[in-house]
Every structure is written in C-alpha cells, then in structure tokens.
C-alpha cells in the first residue's frame, strides 16, 4: 500500500513526488509514456535531441534573489542555483504591423519602448502594473474578471492592449480570446517583471534532476504504466487499475493527467467546461548550419501578429498563420555557445483538423505546413531558410499522444481547480488544471498541492 500514487511524470507530478519522497512517504509515480516530462519532454531523432516544450523558463530572477516563485521552488525542492544553471534571455520583442516593442528581463526596457512608441500610454501602463494581483492573491479573488475588460479600461490605445495580451496568451491562455485577470497577473509578472531564461542543457537537465532526486529519496517511478481506471468506493479512491490490468492501492491519489481526464478515469461524466474550444499549437523546429546570430538574429523570442488585432482562437485551418512565436534557444546568455543553431516557430492549431488526417496526409501536411509556417515567420525575423539542415514538426496530435490531454490542450482547463480537491476525499489534482501553467507554474502546483493535502 502506497501513501500516495501520482498519475503522470510531468513537471507537476515529479515535483510533488520529490516533496513526498523527501519526507519519507511511500510514493509511486505512474507514467503512461516511456519517457518522463509530459508536455515538457525531449526526444531523440536522427541523432539529435529536441526539447518538446521548453522555449524559456519564466519567473527568472538573478542568483541571490530570495523572494518570488523561482526562489520558493528552489528552496522547496532543495535546488542550488548551479543545479539549473539558468542563462537569462538576450532580449525579445513583440512585433505587430508598424509597431515593435522590445523587452528584456528588466521592465525598464519595455517601459522605455512604450514611452517611445506610445508616449500617451506610459502612465496607463504603469497603472496596469500597479493593479496586477499578487502571487499571494492567486485563486482567492474569485472575481473572474476579464483581462480584456480590465486592460481596456486602463490602456486607451487598443493596439498597445493587443500587444501586451499577445505574449501572455501565447504563454498561458487556456481558452480563446481572453484570460482571467488573476491568471494574467501571474503570467505578466512571470514574463515581464521577472523574466525568461534557459538552462544550457535544456529541459533534460531539470527533468533528470527531479527524477534522480525522487529516486534517491526512495520514490518509485514506473514508465509505460498508464492508469486505465480509478476504482471508487463510497467517497474515496479504492484502487488504481493500470492499462495492463494490474491493480495498486494507495491512501491518496494525486493526478496530473488533467481534471476532465481524471474524472473520466473515475467514470464520472463531466459537463464540458470548455465551450470556447481548447487552445493547441503546432511547433516547427529548424536546425541551422550556423548560429542565428550569424544571420543577423539575436532575439530570444519574437511574438508576432500580422494585423492590429490579435486573434487568440482555435483556427478553422490546420494552422493559424497570422500570428506566432519564434524562439531561438541559442539566444540566451550562456557561458558557452550551443552546438547548433535552432529556430523554433509555434502557432495556434486546430486539433480536430490534424487528428482527422490519415497517415499519409498527416505526413504531407506536416511538410507543407512547415514551409508555410516558416514563410509566415520570416516576415518578422531574418530569412534563415538557406541555413536549414534538419527539420521537425510536432502537432496537436503529437501533444495529445504524449500527454493524454484532450484535444492536445496546452494549458489545461479554462476553469481551474485552485484548491486541488475533487469529489473524492483522497483524490487530488495538480498541474495545469489546478491553476498554474508553464514549467515553473506546474512545479509550484505539484509542490503546493503535496504540501497542503499530502504532507499533513
């Protein structure tokens, strides 16, 4: 009998596992896939290792900073700065027609850009920052305020409002068009007031550290161990039944598989809480024969949109070519350069469209849309096509296959379960559906749900 069974070895499940195992609990993490990481994994193809999720770690603060989510995460998981060796971004930009706003890990850069490009808005922008909710207020206000409405009341130039929303929605918008002001506050802080960084060795370094910590403390990690069913007795989980038919018992179950997905495992029918459609994406990876810098490109991330209005919605087509993000993992301030140049482009995509293709059309669509995606992005970054030596594309279908998240959803349900509880007294929820998104958000979610409910 385990103290806790954790479903999923993504960031949140691993983080919760480290906490519980560290304090002597008997824990088993069950992961369906043959690798750990979930939405943030890595894979090998033709001799190269690719990160799936990671563009950048958000919430970056310089070494020695004692407050904020990253410092909290480090202390809770007993991480020393050098364990992650984060390198800060070089500088990013939001690019709309006739307007560019550059930003870096110091908010002064964005402020001076706004002062230049939107001189009448700088005081309003400062007011917006002053009105952001604190991390401590997260999930407590319950006000459910629309960010578009709040921003609209503060920022009187719609173009600036769209430009501010674009990166925030791309990095954490669970539903179409808008985001709760609470979530917006957290994401805005994590991207603009704190900042972006990346470990030299990519996401592998963080995943390996979490997994080895977990095992050192006696935790059990089982791969290819998908949970098929959560058997319920009265108001509790009785046991967990795996896809191979074996059964496991635990006093508590913590699931990072997603709220709706977890309810399905319990055989609970779920009212669809996602009437707006889930947001999913496609990502292309281009490996270059030279660093992007040598092509005149030294931005870390570019968020682009080709009209004055940003449409954050599930597209009709396979991919929405109007907007996207370009990330070059090379453009962080590392002590030594990466081996190869890489450009990654992410755009919104339609899960059903990708899912309905047969095998051959799927392959063909990946090839065709790679070309279209790159052609769209080079309107905003230098044309790197002549330097490409290897490409890969992953789609909403890939995300669905490797994480089990319905419709390849990136940032979980729109309606978060802030307290991490469920209809059963010993079943808890962590990860994207609990409230916090992104890598740091998922880790904090795993930590705080473990602390609140499983370490008492």
């Amino acid at each position, binding site marked *: 009998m385990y103290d806790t069974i954790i479903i999923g070895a993504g960031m949140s499940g691993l983080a919760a596992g480290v906490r519980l195992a560290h*304090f*002597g609990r008997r824990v088993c993490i069950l992961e369906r896939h043959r690798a750990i990481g979930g939405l943030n994994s890595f894979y090998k193809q033709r001799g190269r290792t690719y990160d799936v999720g990671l563009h950048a770690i958000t919430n970056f603060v310089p*070494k*020695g900073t*004692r*407050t904020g989510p990253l410092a*909290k995460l*480090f*202390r*809770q998981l*007993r*991480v*020393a*700065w050098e364990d992650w060796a984060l390198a800060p971004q070089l500088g990013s930009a939001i690019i709309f027609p006739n307007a560019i706003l550059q930003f870096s890990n110091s908010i002064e850069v964005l402020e001076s850009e706004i002062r230049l490009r939107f001189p009448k808005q700088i005081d309003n922008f400062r007011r917006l920052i002053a009105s952001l909710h604190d991390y401590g207020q997260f999930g407590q206000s319950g006000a459910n305020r629309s960010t578009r409405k709040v921003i609209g009341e503060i920022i009187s130039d719609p173009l600036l409002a769209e430009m501010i929303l674009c990166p925030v929605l791309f990095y954490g918008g669970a539903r179409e068009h808008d985001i709760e002001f609470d979530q917006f506050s957290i994401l805005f802080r994590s991207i603009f007031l704190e900042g972006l960084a990346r470990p030299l060795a990519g996401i592998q370094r963080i995943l390996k550290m979490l997994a080895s910590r977990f095992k050192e403390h006696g935790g059990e990690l089982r791969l290819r161990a998908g949970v098929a069913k959560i058997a319920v007795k009265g108001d509790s989980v009785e046991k967990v039944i795996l896809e191979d038919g074996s059964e496991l018992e635990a006093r508590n179950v913590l699931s990072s598989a997603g709220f709706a997905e977890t309810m399905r495992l319990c055989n609970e029918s779920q009212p669809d809480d996602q009437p707006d459609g889930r947001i999913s994406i496609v990502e292309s990876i281009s490996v270059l024969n030279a660093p992007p810098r040598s092509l005149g490109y030294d931005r870390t991330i570019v968020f682009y949109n080709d009209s004055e209005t940003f449409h954050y919605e599930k597209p009709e087509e396979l991919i929405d070519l109007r907007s996207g993000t370009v990330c070059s993992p090379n453009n962080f301030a590392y002590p030594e350069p990466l081996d190869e140049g890489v450009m990654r482009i992410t755009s919104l995509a339609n899960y059903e469209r990708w899912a309905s293709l047969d095998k051959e059309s799927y392959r063909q669509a990946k090839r065709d849309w790679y070309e279209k995606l790159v052609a769209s992005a080079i309107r905003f970054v230098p044309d790197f096509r002549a330097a490409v030596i290897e490409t890969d594309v992953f789609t909403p279908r890939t995300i669905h296959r490797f994480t089990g998240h319905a419709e390849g959803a990136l940032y979980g349900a729109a309606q978060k379960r802030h307290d991490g509880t469920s209809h059963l007294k010993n079943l808890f929820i962590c990860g994207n559906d609990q409230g916090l998104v992104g890598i740091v958000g998922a880790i904090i979610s795993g930590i705080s749900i473990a*602390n609140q409910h499983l*370490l008492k």
Partner: protein
Amino acid sequence: MTAADIRVAILDILHDIAPDEDLSGLKEDVPFREQLELDSMDFLDIVMELRKRYRVQIPENEYTELASMGSTVRYLEPRMKDIAK
C-alpha cells in the same frame, strides 16, 4: 544534544533548504524572516525536517518559537536534550 549541537543541526537544515545562502554571518537574534526572507512554507519545512531527522514534534501554535536562531535553540534545548547527536 547540547545547545551547540542544536545550533549545528539547524544550520544544516537551513543549508539544505537554501543551499546558496552564506550562513556564516547569521545573527543569533535577528528573525530568519528578515535575514533570509524565509516564509511560512520554509518554516513548515524546518519543522518537518526536525521531525524527520530527530523525531521532535512541534505543535503548530509553537512554530513562532522558531523565529530566530537564538529563540529556536532556546526552545529546542529542553526538547532535544535526550536525543543523541
């Protein structure tokens, strides 16, 4: 454990929680909260580490006794005197 042993034990726990902190200049009677900006999650961790390592139970309403190094050692001394180092 003597007061000096307890002090070392607490330093060891603090070092695990915040490996990047230089604890050599830690002041006896200035709150951890001020010196290291520890928050309630960190205090809970100190309590849990003490329980894990030395099996000392600290009731929730007495967590405030752990405010500084001085107060922590004074509070723990009678409670840990029979514990082997």
